[in-house]
């Protein structure tokens, strides 16, 4: 549940968009909470066709305490750096034959 992290980084850009949005139509309200547009669609690019390396090789770019999101189906295990996921938010991936949206 990655609430608001990317937005805090982009606060300045957001303020501009929020200002322009406020002049536009009323936002959609779902269950009493508005859906707010703060960035253009795909301004943060989801990752398609992800590439992997074995754990031994990943040691070259992963730090020991780096937070990761990990999954396994009992056969294959895959890890995603949380710092890297910040740049994409979503990875359209598969585990075995199961299509997954990697996100948190």
């Amino acid at each position: 549940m990655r609430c608001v992290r990317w937005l805090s980084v982009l606060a300045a850009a957001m303020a501009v968009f929020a200002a322009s949005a406020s002049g536009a139509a009323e936002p959609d309200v779902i269950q009493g909470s508005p859906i707010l547009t703060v960035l253009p669609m795909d301004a943060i690019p989801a990752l398609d066709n992800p590439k992997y390396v074995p754990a031994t090789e990943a040691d070259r770019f992963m730090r020991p305490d780096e937070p990761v999101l990990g999954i396994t189906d009992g056969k294959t295990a895959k890890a995603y750096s949380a710092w890297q996921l910040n740049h994409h938010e979503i990875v359209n991936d598969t585990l075995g034959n199961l299509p997954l949206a990697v996100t948190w």
Partner: protein
Amino acid sequence: MYVRPTVEGKPLNFGVSGKLWKDALIMYDRETFSLWSHVTGTAVKGKLSGMRLRLYPAIHTTWTEWKQLYPDSLVLDKRSGLGLEGTRNVYDTYFANPNQLGIFGTENPDTSLPGKEFVIGLTLDTVAVAYPYRHLSRQPLVNETVDGRAMLVLFSTESATGVVFSRKLANRTLTFTNLRREGKNLVIDDVETKSTWRALSGEAVRGRLAGTRLEQLPSTVGFWFAWKGFYPDTLVWKP
């Protein structure tokens, strides 16, 4: 972590809509442009409105702990045409500031816990339940039955890793005890068969049940204020 559902014969692909709802990401799917809440996994607008994504169990941990659990793991490659991606946490100032809750100044809806307390959050059939890290640090092994589900919650204080398993194995309900490190591995025993299990993967490594595996239940890690905002009726576990 969600399973991408098949719609009209092919799995949906998701993108970042640039929209926010309740201070959290709204995804869209490229096939129907429906909007999906990232937190609840429910389509809130568009053709697929009301559809709910199935969670897939994942674990939030450190690279060191993960590698210890799964030495043959694959890892998302950081090398791209633009150099290495994600060499630091771009949100570290947000994480470090206890007073900044969300970008629009969200209030902590329940000050019995600090807004930025990390919790393990779980949604069951009829209830949501939160396990605050501060409580898990004091009691890192929890045998629970919530909403009719016999569950095991485990926490590694060293790597701030929380994981939830079902305690049901075939027709038996197990009870776990004695969380400890054996070498680099965090292990537990079950009371009923005295088998020894790797705590974070749920795999029995010694004893009568060696080779079997507990079912991991999908849980998430989030800030308390956000969890409570989405699940106002959430239960909160205390030791």
